[in-house]
């Protein structure tokens, strides 16, 4: 009874509530009855192998894709029942860090960070300048404000994109594979930044990743998804202690287990003998 009450309270405090989500591409179901609660002011990691639809989930939360069934609520609003104007108003309170950074390549670093401010506010130029410099200072790139995106390393581009994502002081940020392809220093910087920004600005962070060590280091709660469903959820400690064979294989990066090393095939001897007969 107490557990049920606790679960209900957690669900009420959730910023994002996903219920019975079903989504398919062609004949393949990417999500088949997904239920997820993203608590406020916390970092929630969505993990799973490549191709499980982690990025698709972020696009569903952001209203860029429409589910076949089920609901996605953000701050109490059903994302897919909103009008275009309402959806855009909601998106102004969301930030998203794309895997590629998605910086506008014809604008400088400064102009990229200033872009959402120019589009959605009527602030004076001097106020925009101050805000942009503060956001760039937060990600350690105030000195790179005059560079063009083509002059940035991958890690720097993501930090600029992070500064742009927080330009309008959103209530939540979605990170799409923030650590992919980063060197150890950039990765460490990003890990630290995500945690600090979340705590300092009381953000709600949703992080999609398959970089296990870095993700478990900063996540408050983890959902592991596979075959369109949540197969495990809990704190990083809970996942490390218990969990199914599949989760242990994923977390520990074991080459063989429930997810086999070999792609399904007839026995090797059969294949070799068949070749010999030809």
């Amino acid at each position, binding site marked *: 009874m107490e557990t049920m009450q606790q679960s209900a309270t957690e669900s009420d405090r959730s910023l994002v509530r996903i219920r019975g989500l079903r989504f398919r591409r062609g004949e393949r179901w990417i999500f088949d009855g997904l239920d997820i609660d993203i608590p406020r002011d916390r970092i929630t990691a969505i993990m799973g192998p490549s191709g499980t639809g982690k990025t698709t989930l972020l696009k569903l939360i952001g209203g*860029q894709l429409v589910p076949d069934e089920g609901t996605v609520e953000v701050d109490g609003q059903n994302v897919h029942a909103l009008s275009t104007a309402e959806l855009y108003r909601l998106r*102004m309170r969301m930030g998203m860090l794309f895997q590629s950074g998605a910086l506008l390549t014809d604008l400088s670093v400064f102009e990229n960070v200033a872009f959402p401010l120019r589009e959605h506010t009527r602030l004076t130029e001097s106020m925009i300048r101050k805000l942009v410099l503060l956001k760039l200072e937060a990600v350690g790139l105030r000195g790179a404000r005059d560079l063009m995106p083509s002059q940035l390393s991958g890690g720097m581009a993501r930090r600029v994109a992070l500064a742009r994502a927080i330009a309008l002081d959103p209530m939540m940020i979605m990170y799409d594979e923030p650590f992919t392809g980063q060197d150890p220093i950039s990765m460490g910087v990003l890990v630290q930044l995500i945690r600090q920004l979340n705590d300092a600005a009381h953000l709600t962070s949703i992080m999609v990743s398959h970089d296990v060590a870095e993700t478990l280091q900063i996540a408050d709660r983890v959902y592991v998804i596979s075959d369109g469903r949540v197969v495990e959820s809990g704190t990083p400690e809970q996942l490390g202690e218990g969990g199914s064979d599949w989760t242990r294989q994923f977390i520990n990066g074991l080459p063989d287990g429930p997810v086999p090393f070999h792609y399904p095939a007839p026995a090797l001897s059969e294949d070799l003998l068949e070749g010999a007969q030809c």
Partner: protein
Amino acid sequence: MLNLFASLGAWGMESLTRLGRAHLLLFPLLRGLLDILRRPRLLVDQLYSVGVLTILIIAVAGLFVGMVLGLQGYNVLSRFGGETALGFMVAASLVRELGPVLTALLFAGRAGSALTAEIGLMKATEQLSGLEMMAVNPEHRVLAPRFFAGLVSVPLLAAIFSCLGVLGGWMVGGGLLGVDQAAFWNGMQEGIDFHDDVVNGVIKSVVFGFVCTWIAVFQGYDCLPTSEGVSRATTRTVVHSSLAVLGLDFVLTALMFG
């Protein structure tokens, strides 16, 4: 045989679906005009990259086409002693046909393909998705200014093409071949009708500008977000625009002069 019909049917359905998507894109493009009226700077920037940067190729092509017209026209007309009609012939050919058509074909090759590649790459590098997530409509912010810039640029470029073409015809006819200069300009002034020739030529170039830019913007926005997808979309822009311009030119000519 059945497979052939099935493939043809699938191709037909796919083509119709794409055509439908292209038409649906027109609504947000036209709505984007409100954003442009609020922030004309968006249009001005695109007028530069779509229009101004295309002037050189249009000017050079116009000059050479006019010179060829002068030479060929003189050879034909001089057989009948009609060299004095050279000015009218050069101007009528340019204003009615060659100006709008060749400008549109060159525009599709230079600016249309660039528009498709730019929009396609913005899609492939998630810049358009990024705009959506920043609550900025990419159809209004990115596509509409480019579409209206093309619509405005093509008639102006066609005018430049025709003017330099006439100049090229005069340089060859009047300068090199010795056609009487007064007869050259008088023939042009008396022969060219403002409504039948100039206005119809402008209408043609507006239609071609609309079609070429619409195709370019749609192909970029609808392409597969991969390097191969962008490459194919760019090729489709040039091929579809060229065929559309030539086909529409026949229809418009039949309606205007038929």
